[in-house]
């Protein structure tokens, strides 16, 4: 069993699945529309959708016998929050490093 972040980032570690997420960010789509976009077979698109669904990144609902896929925005926020935390940690570490280098009289340049 994998932890939530491994599942989420693992699901995003494929160009087709990232493209699906990007497409869904514009609005929900039918399974057939997503399959047509990449000319993928039903089993192939189903596999990608399963990985995304297991990671909690998408949800599906059935309307008039058509499967509609949409993004789970709140789950995406969890991945985003994690990245923000990591960034904040390093930013503050680099701030401390800057201060330390300045105190030690070492010339340095920090690129953002």
């Amino acid at each position: 069993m994998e932890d939530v972040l491994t599942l989420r980032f693992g699901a995003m570690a494929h160009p087709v699945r990232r493209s699906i997420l990007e497409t869904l960010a514009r609005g929900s789509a039918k399974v057939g529309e997503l399959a047509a976009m990449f000319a993928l077979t039903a089993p192939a698109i189903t596999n990608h959708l399963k990985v995304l669904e297991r990671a909690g990144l998408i949800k599906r609902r059935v309307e008039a016998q058509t499967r509609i896929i949409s993004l789970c925005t709140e789950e995406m926020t969890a991945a985003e929050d994690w990245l923000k935390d990591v960034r904040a940690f390093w930013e503050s570490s680099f701030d401390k490093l800057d201060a330390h280098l300045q105190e030690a009289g070492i010339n340095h340049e920090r690129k953002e």
Partner: protein
Amino acid sequence: MAQNEKIQDRTLVISRTFKASAQAVYDAWTKPDQFAKWMGPGGYTVPECEIDLKAGGQFRAVVKSPEGGENIAAGTYEELAEPDRLVFTFGWNYPEGRGHVTAITVELAESGGETEMTMHQALFAEAEHRDQHNQGWNASFDKMEKVLG
């Protein structure tokens, strides 16, 4: 990422009919010596090409411009249904790192001694990249036509 561009403007579909069997067109995509003969627009050459033809296998082709600049096209095979279709990821390796990766599906339908090839490529980072690839592939397919002829 082009937030404002329509998804359909970042996808590419090219159809071509070749006077060849589906198997011949499939081979042109999957045999390194043949792929090297047509990949890249006129004047471009492929001095190196490696293909590990299996699901999960990778390909790598050095594409050299007439001016001598080299770019590397590389990707991973996802689905191989000889001789009707192949699916693979596709991206360019630049000195500064790997560029945006798209997925390509090539469908081949043979009838009456001809084969209709439909290539789908999605999702480009920008519509401009789609337009550049549209030109590049069409010029390459002109060469493929000669290789098959």
